[in-house]
Structures are given as C-alpha cells and as structure tokens.
C-alpha cells in the first residue's frame, strides 16, 4: 500500500471526441491534507474528479485511490469516498432530515447509531432549524451545507468536493472551511475544486489546471515564489489611461485592474521591469506611482493560465 498518498494518478486523460478535457494528468495527493484544484471554467476539474471516483472511465492512464486501482475496482471504493457534486444533487422534494436518513440507509450506516449521527451532523452543519424543510426550497448556502453533511455522513477517508462554495457568502465560506479543516485534522483527505483565491490559499497543496493540462502544482507559498514573473503594482489617478499605456508593451504579459491599482506581470527574463513600466507611463503622459510587489496566488493563476502567445511576451 502506498501509505503516503490518498490519490496517485499517472497520465490520466479523458477525451470527449476531439476535445482533450483532461490531458495526461499526474497527481499526488498526500493523505490527511486539503488539496486544492484550481482552473478556469472548462479546464477539466469536474472531469478529473469524476474519473477519480469512477463515474467516468479514463481514456488513458490510471490512478490509485486509497490503494484501490481505478477504473477497475471503483465499486470497492464507494463506501470510503464522499463526493459532493458541483450541481446540487440531493432530493429537492424530500426534507433535510429525509435526505440524511436516505443517505444513512444507502451507505448502510450502523442502524443503532444513525439517529445520533444525523443529529450530530444537523448541529455541526447548522441545519437544525431546517430539518423539516424541503431541501429544494433552501438557500444556496444551506443546500451546500446539507450536501457536505451528506457527503461526510458515512465518515469517508477521502472527500471529493467539486466547487462546494460557489454561491456561498463570505461568512458561510469561512464556516465551511472551518469544517473542512476539522475533517482534515480527523484524518480525512480532501480534494476540493474552487475558483476562489482565498480558498486556494488555505489549501495545504494545490494544482492548477488549464485546458486539461496541469500547469502548476505545489504549496501556495511555493507557487507564489516560483511564478517566473515580476509583479509591478501601479497606482494611477486614471487607471484606464495607465492600462492603455502599458497593455500593448511587448514585455508585459498581463495587466489586471483592481480598483485604482493595476497589477502588471512581466516575465523574469527582463531585468528591469520597473523601468519598463515607468518609461511607458511617462511617454504616455500618465501620472502614476509604480512599485515592485510580490506575487499573490491570483498572480500565479493569471501567469500560468494565460495563452502561449501572451506567455511568449
């Protein structure tokens, strides 16, 4: 048994016709950690997760999940993994309680402990007031808490969460993540896909996918330290004019506006990034202040997911 990793995938690929939704993906997810999965829309996050839990058959490659070979013996895995789908997939015309009961029955949770386990989950995921409410009528955040409660009910060793916090307010997201950390401390391995940078920063490790290809992999700190990009922050009175002045520079890989500030990425191949930006601004007659900044995860994301033509800059 490969004791250290909950998931090990080699050359995992999924093709839909000509589309390579996932392309030769290698993954190593350490046990007991929260592993983030980042990527733009359509980059293959859901497809990868579905392959890992045996819902989709890989076109090529294979994986070992909790010591079980995929796709061959996916069925043996079911009792040991919890999967939270991107789209709400519980029964809208049943109450919160009925959904939890159904899940406990379908996973053959020990009959004598069912009630206690469900009560515990209702409290833990703050659903006690909704217990008799139809699941379909709940708010987005409540639905996601219920989905998580159902995914963890049978105490799985591995949790696969596909964008569990889309449509959840910041406070609820913090609570949601507190729950994830608690689960990880209890020894559960969690793989979670997300679009939120603040969530990505909380992960122990993360992988970034772009068009089916893994473009970065490591701890958030490691990724930030190895972007291969200078980051210049520009504070301008007229950010729009500043953006026009630097956007088309050959050296500039990308410009992102954040309020009155611009974050400019320039490849590390260029030695004096600050001078490049400042001279362009001066030439355009834009008054602005530029400073060297350090890369955030968002910068990493922008840097690794841009097209090859931009990267060549």
């Amino acid at each position, binding site marked *: 048994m490969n004791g250290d990793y909950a998931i090990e995938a080699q050359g995992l690929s999924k093709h839909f016709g000509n589309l390579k939704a996932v392309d030769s993906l290698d993954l190593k997810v350490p046990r007991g950690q929260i592993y983030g999965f980042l990527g733009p829309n359509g980059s293959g996050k859901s497809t990868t997760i579905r392959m890992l839990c045996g819902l989709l058959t890989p076109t090529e490659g294979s994986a070992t999940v909790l010591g079980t070979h995929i796709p061959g013996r996916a069925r043996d895995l079911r009792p040991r993994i919890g999967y939270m789908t991107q789209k709400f997939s519980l029964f809208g015309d049943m109450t919160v309680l009925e959904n939890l009961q159904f899940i406990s*029955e379908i996973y053959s949770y020990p009959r004598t402990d069912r009630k206690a386990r469900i009560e515990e989950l209702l409290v833990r995921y703050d659903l006690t007031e909704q217990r008799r409410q139809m699941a379909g009528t709940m708010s987005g955040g409540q639905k996601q808490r219920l989905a998580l409660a159902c995914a963890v009910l049978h105490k799985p060793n591995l949790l696969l969460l596909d964008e569990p916090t889309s449509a959840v307010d910041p406070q609820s997201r913090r609570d949601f993540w507190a729950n994830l950390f608690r689960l990880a401390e209890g020894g559960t391995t969690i793989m979670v896909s997300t679009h939120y940078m603040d969530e990505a920063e909380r992960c122990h490790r993360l992988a970034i996918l772009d068009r089916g290809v893994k473009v970065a992999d490591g701890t958030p700190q490691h990724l930030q330290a190895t972007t291969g990009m200078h980051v210049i922050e520009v504070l301008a009175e007229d950010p729009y004019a500043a953006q026009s002045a630097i956007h088309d520079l050959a050296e500039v890989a990308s410009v992102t506006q954040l309020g009155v500030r611009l974050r400019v990425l320039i490849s590390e191949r260029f030695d004096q990034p600050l001078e490049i930006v400042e001279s362009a601004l001066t030439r355009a007659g834009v008054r602005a202040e530029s400073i060297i900044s350090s890369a955030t995860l968002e910068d990493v994301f922008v840097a690794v997911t841009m097209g090859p033509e931009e990267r060549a800059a």
Partner: protein
Amino acid sequence: MISLSRMGAIIRKEVRQLRRDRLTFGMVFGLPIIQILLFGYAINTDVRNLHAAVADQANTSLSREFVADVEATQVVRFVDQAETPAELEAMLRRGDISIGVFIPPDFDRRVVDQTRSAVHVLVDGSDPTVLGVAAQLRNVPVQFGSGSQRQAVELIETRAYYNPERRTPVNIVPGLMGVILMMTMMLFTAVAIVREKERGNLELLINTPVSSAELMIGKVTPYVLIGLLQLGLILGVGRLLFDVPVRGSVLDLYIAGTAFIAAKLSLGLLISTAVRTQFQAMQMTVFILMPSILLSGFMFPFAGMPQVAQFIGEVLPTTHFIRLTRGIMLRDASLFELTPDFLYLVGFTVVAMTIAALRFTKRLD
C-alpha cells in the same frame, strides 16, 4: 449480492416522492377513472339515433308502416321530412342528417316485384360507422297485412344480431385495462430514471454503494403495487357503472395483471436507459403507445388486420394481456387455457429487464 436494506431505502424514497408529487399521484387514480368513463360512455359501437329524413312519395299504409319499423330500430331518428330525393341530398350535404330514406311512388308494387329496389337509402359515407348502420337498415323487413297474415319480404333476422342492451363496455373494459395499465406503468418508469438523470440525483446515487439491480428493482416495486391497485379500480368501476362481469377467476386476472405490469415496467426501464431527457422518454412512450392501442385488438378485431399489423401486434405485450383479460373476464377461461399469452408476458419481462440492467452502467459516459 442484493442488499434488501438498500433496496428498501430506494423503495421508501420513491414512495415518499410519489406521495408528494400531487399531479402524478392524481394521475395514478384519476387517469383510470377518467379513461374508463370516457371509453365506457363515449365509445359506443352500437350507433343509435342517427339523424335521418324521409321522402315518402308513396305515402301508402305499407310505406308508413315501413317508416315506423325503421324508426323502431332506434338506429335512426327522423328529424325531418322531404318531398324529393334532391331535397334529401341537400340535407345530407348541409350535415343536417346522416341518412336519407327515399320511398318512390310505386313502393307497394316494387316490394312485390322485387326486381327493382323498393327503397333508396342515401348515406353520408364520410363516416364509415354510418355506412355500417345503413347496412343494418337493409335488413328491416317490409310486411304485408297485419296479425297472423303478416308476410315478411327480404327476411333476415336482424334483431337477433342487434345488441339491444348496448353492451359495448363489456367488450371495452377488459381491453381498457390493458391500455390504462400500459400508459401509466410505462410512462412512470420511463420517466423515473431519466428524471433523476436530469435533476442530477443520479450522479449522487451512482456514487453510493447502491447497485444497478437494487436501484432498478427498488424503483419499479412501488409501481407494481400501484398497477395492481389500478387494476382493482378499473374492475370496480367497470362493475359498478357498466356491470362488466368477471366470469373467470379474479386470482387468475391478478396473476395475469402482475405479469403484464412487470412487462410494461421493464419496457419503461429499458426506455429510461436509452433516452437522455424526460421529453424523449415521453416521445418514446407515445411511440409504443399508439400501436399498442391500435394493433392490440383493443380497437379493431385482431383477425381482421393486415398481416404486417398482426405481426407487430403479436410483439406488443398489450395484445397478449388483452387476450388474457377478455378470456378470463368474458369467456370464463382459466390461465391454463391461455398459457402462451401468459408465457409471452413473462418472457418479455425477463428479456427487457436483462437488457435494461445491462445497459444501465453505473457511469456517466
């Protein structure tokens, strides 16, 4: 290994959702009642009271007696009088009448002569049933004199063939049982799995330890019970309103019913595995529904259909079930005398269920 507790969980969930779905729940019991009322009252092959007019140019006692005899059959009701055949034709064209009876001035002589027809019946041939009714009129005897001297011309005992009690429902209800069960059973199951596919529930379900067989059987079981309830309902209403008898064994009828329900549910599941949306499932159901209604012997006598139609009819489970119900209910036949039809239903179930379970892989691709 099938786990009974997991299957039980699926069954309970299905029942719970069904109970909450007011519309479907209403359909389960409302549909059979509405159908049986509709078919029982509206579809009546013994046509009566067709509007008719007479142009009696003879106006003799014999001709008047003939007109009275025609009206006495109750097949037609004379709503108007005309002078000439042309007037009758005009009435036909306007749709005021379906049948015109023209009696020429020399009616009495023609009756005796018999080389020329004594009466002309003008029929609205655009409706085939009216044509059929007109044929009955041909058989109305024309009689001379009265009392013991009565002498009938063109004697064919029409009245013996006529069903004065208007017993169409007796023939319709056993067939209707097949049609109603087919509609509800097939539609419910065809939609059952696709609905979960559409709502996304299936992605969750197939990630749980539940197996394909547990899921299939669990989903279908509640509907078997519903089907048997519907069967009882149809029998009860048929009995109460139309006095439809069950001359054979009720147990035999229920056994045949169970086999038919199983066959239809398996077919529904098979459809469910072949389509992607509920709408497609509906279309497929209708696609099978139409031939089942038309070619099963429910609407038209089976033996009278063209070869190809008969062949298609033989494949459809409904055909065999209708033979079973008519046999058991009307002719007091036992299931043993009807074994081939029963075995066909069992065989159909096994084949359809197997294909459905094989087709339903617990995967998304």
